[in-house]
């Protein structure tokens, strides 16, 4: 749970909500063709239910908001550039939506999708 407190009360935003924003932002980024399960358990669960936070991991310790993304990239793009634009995109969308600064975004490129070879 991420929270913000003002004199009127407290706003709690669940990890799941943040993950959904990050997931959508990642998919809108050019070069990202999908997200990948973080681990086997998630991979199995995904077969049963479509999870809107697949491949997104959120950690918040009251100070720092960390986002880990597990992505699949289109073959033939420059992975480094794709990854950094995902970071920009996700950071922008998440910060805009929840107003909490994101401390760290880590991108794990879990695979490439080959549509064409040259």
């Amino acid at each position, binding site marked *: 749970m991420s929270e913000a407190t003002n004199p009127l009360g407290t706003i709690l935003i669940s990890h799941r909500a943040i993950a959904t924003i990050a997931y959508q932002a990642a998919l809108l*980024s050019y070069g990202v063709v999908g997200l990948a399960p973080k681990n086997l358990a998630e991979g199995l669960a995904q077969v049963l239910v479509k999870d809107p936070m697949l491949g997104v991991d959120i950690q918040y310790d009251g100070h720092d908001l960390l986002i880990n993304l597990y992505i699949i990239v*289109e073959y033939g793009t420059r992975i480094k550039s794709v990854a950094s*634009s995902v970071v920009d995109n996700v950071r922008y969308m998440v910060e805009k939506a929840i107003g909490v600064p994101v401390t760290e975004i880590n991108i794990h490129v879990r695979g490439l999708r080959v549509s064409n070879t040259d």
Partner: protein
Amino acid sequence: MSGEQHPTSSNQGGLKVRQNLPVDGQDLKDLIEAALVWLKTNQQTVNALNVFPVPDGDTGTNMVLTMQAAYNEIVNSGEKNVGRMAHSVAQGALMGARGNSGVILSQLWRGFARAMDNLETMDAAILVNALVEGRKTAYKGVVRPVEGTILTVAKDMATAAEDAIQHTQDLLEMLEIVVDAADRSVKHTPELLPVLKSAGVVDSGGKGLFYILEGMLRYCKEQSLDTPLATVQPLALMNIENSMEEIEPGQDYEVVVDFKPYTPLDLDRFYNDLSQIGTSIQIGEGDGMYRMHIHVEKDKRDDPLKYTETLGTITKVSMENLLAQLEENRGGVVSRLSFTPVEPGQIAVIAVSPGLGISRIFASLGVTGIVEGGQTMNPSTEDIINAFENLPTDKVVILPNNKNIVLAAQTASGLTVKKVAVIPSQSVPQGLSAMLRLAPDGAFDDVVREMSDALQDVETGEITTATRSVELNGVSVQKGQVIALHNGKLVYSASSLEEACLGLLARAHTTERERITLFYGANLDKHEVNRLADKIRNGYPGQELEVHEGGQPHYQFIISIE
């Protein structure tokens, strides 16, 4: 770009396009160069448009860098085969792709090259294929294409080319049709993407792609590539602050004039006249008002004003000395740690800190100076004296924050005429705890006593790796194990950081305390820190846990328990 570097010097490729002759590898190279030059000329215009998705204003720059990388790949190539040349362009663009629009651009080139695979020359039909293939490749790179972006412009270009090939085989005409389609598509982007519409702009990446194609066309028509066309931005969107970064030597003054023209403004003339006066010209328009922005030399700083007066009624003028501002900004960056300045008669505190993060915390608590040093890098007596000798006060408190530095600090206090007290803090937590009791205007002896008393308020834990095997205080340690020190005494050894931290907390009087603060060291993985913090939080739900970056070497953690 100076004149002779331009492809226009020979205009071989342009001539061929005009005569509708097949274009070979060298001609393509000329076209690419023209595209790059024209994009560069209009780089700032593209940058100024950037609102989506991250308003960082660098789309133009990213696209220029990508095209530059593509051109660098072929600049010395004598390749005649247009297919192989196109592959080199794609390769260069791929390697140099910067930013979202750069990546998309590189994909367009990749498709473009694939369509020309091993072809000797390019004609209108092949150009159409290449544009179509570029569109296909670019669209494959994204799950949810956002329309109203560079992708849409690429798509519209390809569609227009597909239609046109039914009734023309002329290469120049085809290029004109494509550029025209790109132009219309760019102008249509705000209708597709609300964020553009609300900002009153067109898509920056799409505009960049338009300039690339238009550069080729202008080259073929032998039009100039190094003077930007007059462009007018919506007034609300003029991004004048950003222009600070690119001050040309000698152009020290920024002048912004708002005016209402007497007669409709001839933009091209206006732009040309301004470019005689200065650089970084931007023109904004809104509601019958115009705003012009220009960088000029010191002597010419009144010229924009005099010139604008001949055209209309001036409503507002602002003038700034950029050079002076820039220097001011630079000064600010250097001293990132902001210390509390001390006034004569106040008590100054000098703290020894083992890492940047800890220095920041000390600075935020009001120390006057920091001496870097810690376990294996003890500062010299001289370092310590230098830190306070020039301060405008004669009352100084030193926090050595390490057992081994206490002595050097005491020596320093004997070598100065100032009144110096060393608070024998043996660890960072003790030093921080003492800082909390500082009253800069209090009586010196009282403050020193208070601060010394505070050392007892806190327990210190330190987690580090054993450098040799030893048995001490009944704890046996193997070299390489993680060890925990409680108030400087070895209390626990373990094989993992987690075990050592929990072992330490169990041996300290943690449950009687209120707060645990972790200062994690340099080179420690942030995830590991967070995992550990979660463990501690679970184990000690009654205590508040804070985690700070300490940045100290050797010690993975310094833990304060108070």
